[in-house]
């Protein structure tokens, strides 16, 4: 079937079987490999993308659900202002990552950023609970999120004054 959606701001039309998973469409058909595949079971969060600004596991969404949707993957998100804030925080904290879970982590933070103003540690933990990581001990990720919000608030205040 033919499906048209917006992908990272661009109208995209593809021909696919209806039950194909979004993750396979992204990785195999469109060559967008930033979205990773760790389990295909909704358990690991490596495949997270934003669909209509909601964080969703792309291994759980079939093609036929995509018509008219606005899909943002890490490739698109990394071009945004929000992304630069997140990157700034990561670079500042010097987090070490293998990079496999990183896109999912970044998008989870993005999602939190657009829904909350100053999250508590509990809220941060909850927001990142869909993302597994085996190389990092998570605690530095929590600090990164705190830092992201510090940067955001600083920017907001700078604008105001």
């Amino acid at each position: 079937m033919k499906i048209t959606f917006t992908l990272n701001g661009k109208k995209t039309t593809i021909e696919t079987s209806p039950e194909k998973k979004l993750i396979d469409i992204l990785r195999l058909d469109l060559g967008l490999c930033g979205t990773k595949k760790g389990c295909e079971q909704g358990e690991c969060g490596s495949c997270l993308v934003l669909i209509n600004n909601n964080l969703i596991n792309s291994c759980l969404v079939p093609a036929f659900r995509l018509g008219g949707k606005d899909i943002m993957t890490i490739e698109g998100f990394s071009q945004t202002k929000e992304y630069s804030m997140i990157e700034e925080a990561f670079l500042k904290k010097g987090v070490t990552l293998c990079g496999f879970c990183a896109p999912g982590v970044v998008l989870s933070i993005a999602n939190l950023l657009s829904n909350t103003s100053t999250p508590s540690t509990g809220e941060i933990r909850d927001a990142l609970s869909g993302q597994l990581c085996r190389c990092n001990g998570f605690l530095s990720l929590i600090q990164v999120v705190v830092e992201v919000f510090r940067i955001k608030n600083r920017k907001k205040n700078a604008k105001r004054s």
Partner: protein
Amino acid sequence: MSIKTILSHKLKGEAIFTDDIAPDNMIYGYTVRSEIPRGTILSIKIPELPGGYICADYKDIPGQKFFSTFGEEIPYLAEKKVHYIGEPILLLCGPDKQKLQCLGEQVSIEYKAETPVFSPLHAPEENIFDIVTYSKGSFSGLKDNPCVSVKDTYTTGSQEHLSLEPLCAVSLWNEKSIIIYASTLYPYHIKDNVALFLGVSKKRVKVIVPDVCAPFGGKLFLPTMIAAHTSLLSYMSLKPVKILYTREEDITCSFKRHPAVMTHEIVTDEEGNLLGIYADIIFDAGAYNVMSRRIIEKAVFSAFGMYYCDHMELKARLVKTNKIPSGYFSGSGEIQSLFALECNTYKIAQKVKTDPYIWKKKNISLDCEKRSPPNPGKYSSCIAVIDEVVRISDFLRKYGAYEAIKKPGECGTVSGATPRGIGLVLCPHIIGDFYETETNTYTLTLRLGKNRKLKIMTSLIDMGTSKAAYFAMIASHILNIHISEVIIEKTDTDNVPDTGPTIGSRAAYNIGKCIEQACESIKCKEKKKGYPIEVTKKINLPVKNKKNAKKIPFTPPVITWEGTVVEVEVDPVTFITTCRGIWIVLDPGPVVNDEIARQHVEAAALQNFGFATMEVLEFKNGKVYQNDISEYTIPDITTVPDIHVRFIQNRAGIKHYPGRGLGDQAVTGVAPGYISALYQATNNSYTHLPCTPESIMELMQNR
């Protein structure tokens, strides 16, 4: 790329992993595996294959049919005998993954089954891969005099690395040579073995390692097998071939941590002065012997830890069973035997009514002469480490308070107060690892260009930018250049020399040391010579007396100290535990970057915490029982406790960098700390890892 660019690359999802590589015309491979734990293959029936699909078995291998693992040689494809469920027998390849799976499931194999061995305790003599014994003084004679002793049998389970990136390899054969992309920690192992496997010269095998997720040394040898499989299929089909393990395949068919059974006994006099230690350690090696010696050496060393006394007796064995092979896993050997040792020291301290802190301080052997030289105590600040961890965790006050409220027999009843406990562990870590192999086999190259940009060429794999950062910091310190001017060359065997396996703290210590030496050479040459300056250095043993490396109990030249405190609370209704905090103090010498080092320790501690609490991996008739991520549970962000890490930076004996460890150094104190805390909280001695609420309940109810 410089380190900042690497991190930004990763965050943007631009890091390329092996599965992201898809050359034109690529087809997929599929592995048909043994369904029985032990037996002989009688016949194999293969369904009719449509055009474009081919199959391969051991007869199709043009060259060598086995690969090396620093232990025994393992067949790429089973010939007649199978030794574990999941052992590869046959390969299929073709363009459609679903069709391939369908065909694969139609392959029918007839076996003559033999009685499998699942428990190392019940294995016949011939199954012993390796054995080490040691004795000093007369341990058995100790009990003739009045003494206090604690003896227990401890068991630790299997553990899965669970790297988020599943195992994967892609091979492209082009009639003359082959290019292999693989998710591995040891590219030259693939290069050397695949050359022999295909019967071609090494020059014709090129291995490229894209970005890799391989926590805890998980992808050391198995990737070689997968790369050989894809290479054979590519060689036969003349097309690029990819094999990507499914999550289930990854969990059920990858090498694991060695399960162990350990009987450990400590004898003291009535004042608690250590008299003797006895240890009997049995490792379950699974079907093949991978790296046996190293595992045993580390276990033997750790069975005594820093308590060296006059009467010691030890026996350690590595036994073959018909289960998935055990392989390298960060802290291999140490984690198991330190668990037994440190749980026992905690118990004996309680038995002689001293607190564990006093007991440990009293019995640590700092007397260098007692140990065979070169001694581990030399640069140590192990007293400082234990003092610091006790201080930052407020151990003494908490320990006393929990002792005071402890009313034997009360906990476990619903109305009882919430039981709490706190454990203290002090353990040494062997640093650098891999001693007897570091005999000028491996090298690395540094090149300083005209613009004073430094290029580091090594086949070591950098998973978390941390090694890159670490090496860059050493180089920038010595050569006085900015970190962003240090570039780490991509891992491609055509461009980087063989630096050996990326395991444990070897990467940080042995290689870091070599980088330090190379930088010193460059510095000397810079004064006399023009650019570019290129220096290739051999990685050398830090052992002065090489013979010593083979001695038992093996005494490593460099160790670092870890002091760990774990505080635990037990829900008296559900027996679910809450970890109230973990405090870790390490003395790794000068720390290059505090933040990176801390993150490494946190990750290692979390893995050890998972091993202690929730990473249950059982076998049912030789088959892995928990076979996906929802069944094999690793800690997530909601379960990670507060981990407080401190470094004591003792510079004695160290010129610049590296210190005594870090890198992917294991943290081993969390598990014994956790069990000790539970011991105090509930008055029960837990002897198995992982210790789940189920196990806690069992003991509480059987009282």
